[in-house]
């Protein structure tokens, strides 16, 4: 038993963190809000690709790093921490194990009918029934959707069912959905961490009544509750990474627990973060909203809290 990241996993994660801190700044996220359809800047994406992040799950023989989800999940936390606008969960977590290396940027409707980065992606991974297929972007009509988080760059797709089928096996779809939920849970933990860190800094500096607002118990208790939710969601997500990597019998239950708890935790943190920021948090000028709006979206894609809680209840024997 060893419930901790290995030295290699920590080193890889820290290298990604360093890269993202430089290349995925809030200015880059803001640019994604306004870049024209199909023109999402790929600077940071290409750097991640060069580091091997997009092919962590691809076997070495096929040009990937040949590592497992316990490597990728801490990296996706980092992607969440910077509210990375690119479809890294869809590409690195869901598509890469199915499609191999060199597939470029992949968008997918597996997480829900509103598809992030639909017009920016090189390929689409789509599902109808039990069929998973790779579909050329030009074979699909993409209607842009104005979302609360414009950094989602979302679209709704209409297609005629032509494409290259990958599988008709329901188990393959289930596994892809579990990977997506797991990756999104990791992003949510990272988003929560970003909002907590921002707020601790703000509350330590902002003065009222002649002292930092973070010295008041009412503020402290909000932030302690935020830290608490995050502290106990993260191990659930890491355990689910192990369960997916080793395809254990409780995989589905563990992934759903991770997604439910990470969604809840990030929303708890977001609520407290906004409250503790006060009016400055209620603007588009402060960066907080970039993380907050992504949290609201991700908490309800790849299955919401109710969906995943029901899945846990069913795994525990409830007749639903």
């Amino acid at each position, binding site marked *: *038993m060893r419930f901790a990241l290995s030295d290699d996993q920590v080193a890889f994660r820290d290298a990604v963190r360093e890269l993202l801190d430089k290349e995925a700044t809030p200015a880059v996220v803001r640019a994604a809000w306004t870049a024209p359809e199909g023109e999402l800047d790929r600077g940071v994406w290409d750097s991640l690709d060069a580091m091997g992040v997009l092919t962590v799950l691809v076997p070495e023989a096929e040009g990937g790093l040949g590592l497992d989800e316990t490597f990728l999940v801490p990296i996706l936390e980092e992607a969440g921490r910077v509210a990375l606008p690119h479809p890294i969960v869809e590409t690195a977590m869901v598509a890469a194990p199915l499609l191999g290396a060199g597939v470029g940027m992949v968008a997918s409707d597996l997480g829900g009918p509103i598809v992030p980065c639909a017009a920016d992606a090189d390929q689409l991974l789509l599902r109808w029934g039990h069929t998973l297929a790779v579909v050329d972007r030009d074979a699909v009509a993409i209607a842009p959707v104005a979302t609360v988080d414009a950094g989602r760059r979302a679209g709704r797709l209409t297609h005629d069912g032509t494409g290259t089928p990958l599988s008709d096996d329901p188990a393959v779809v289930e596994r892809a959905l579990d990977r997506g939920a797991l990756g999104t849970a990791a992003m949510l933990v990272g988003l929560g961490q970003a909002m907590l860190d921002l707020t601790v800094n703000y509350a*330590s500096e902002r003065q009222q009544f002649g002292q930092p607002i973070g010295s008041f*118990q009412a503020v402290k208790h909000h932030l*302690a509750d935020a830290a608490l939710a995050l502290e106990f969601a993260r191990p659930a997500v890491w355990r689910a990474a192990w369960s997916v990597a080793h395809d254990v019998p409780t995989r589905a239950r563990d992934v759903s627990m991770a997604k*439910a708890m990470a969604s809840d935790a990030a929303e708890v943190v977001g609520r407290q973060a906004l409250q503790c920021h006060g009016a400055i948090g209620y603007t588009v000028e402060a960066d907080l909203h970039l993380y907050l709006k992504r949290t609201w979206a991700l908490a309800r894609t790849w299955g919401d809290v109710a969906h995943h*809680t029901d899945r846990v209840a069913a795994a525990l024997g409830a007749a639903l």
Partner: protein
Amino acid sequence: MDLTWSGDEDAFRAEARAWLNVHLAEWRAEHGGEPASGDTRDGFAQHLEWERRLFADGWAAVSWPEQHGGRDATLWEWLIFEEEYYRAGAPPRVTQNGIFLLAPSIYEFGSPEQQAGILRRMAAAEDLWCQGWSEPNAGSDLASVTSRARRVDGGWVLDGQKTWTTRGAFCTHLFGLFRSDPASVRHKGLSYLLVPLDTPGVTVRGFGRLDGDEGFAEVFFDEAFLADDAVAGGVVLGEPEQGWAVAMATAGSERGLTLRSPGRFLATAERLIALANERGDTGLQRRAATAWMHADAYQQHTLATVTKLAAGAKPGAEASLTKLWWSELDVELHRVALDLLGPDAEVEGPWSKGWQFALSGPIYAGTNEIQRNIAAERVLGLPR
């Protein structure tokens, strides 16, 4: 990461499970099926019989060295034992305040003579230890204790009053905080003393907790002379006037891992799921599953914590977050159970009893308000 147990650990689990099943059945049978609450006088005596069974076969304090009555188990094995203990439906440990609170501080601060004189008798349930920290005017503000210890030839003279002393009316010894430097204030000048409760001048009065059991006591010290050799190896734990540091180490055990391991909450969560499934379509299955997830998350978090401790890390302020989690978890588990029971929830039984006990969790071991302050200041680094 490696989330599997080794062959040795699986064997340890199997051995513990087999022992518990046999001996629990025997102990229960001796007491007509269901022994009384360990927080009543008769029930306490029945629970001591159970404790002595545990000790006889080396299960009373598994992680301790054999010389002190343990079996040199690793932290992992301790965790496994706790899981099996509560899964088997074994009773609350009436010796817990000694074994899980005082003992870690005896190991850290005690002299070899104190360790030899105290630990084995504690594991054997011959000496029964209770905690003497809170006072009528010192609860969350523990550093304001006023009970005094005056140094005299050959010992100390104790005066003052302690309260909320769990099972104090049934115990034989008390570990307490006393102000030994009369000129001192706050955290300075406190000594951590070990006091036999049969010392002349010490009076113990038990009283009812929320559930009516005599689980609480107040302890009065009236010119009580505590001889230096009243406890083997000496009555001061650590150095005189350094009691606060010792107490904070004890508090770390209380809030963190050792007092409330995940096993007991996992067992409660399993019972809750069984209740929810048995009741069928109540509309409450989702809440039951959520509570179960919170219990399981505590287990996962603990595996991460033990990984760090096994690598030599010391428990830190994160124990405050742990205490917030398990105490609120216990309330949640029982709250959902009461809602599942509906009108039956008011009937005396394990759930209504457990509900009342769960409500003490956010209060004892430092209120959750204090824990939130500690977490905010010492984990998050917010200004004091």
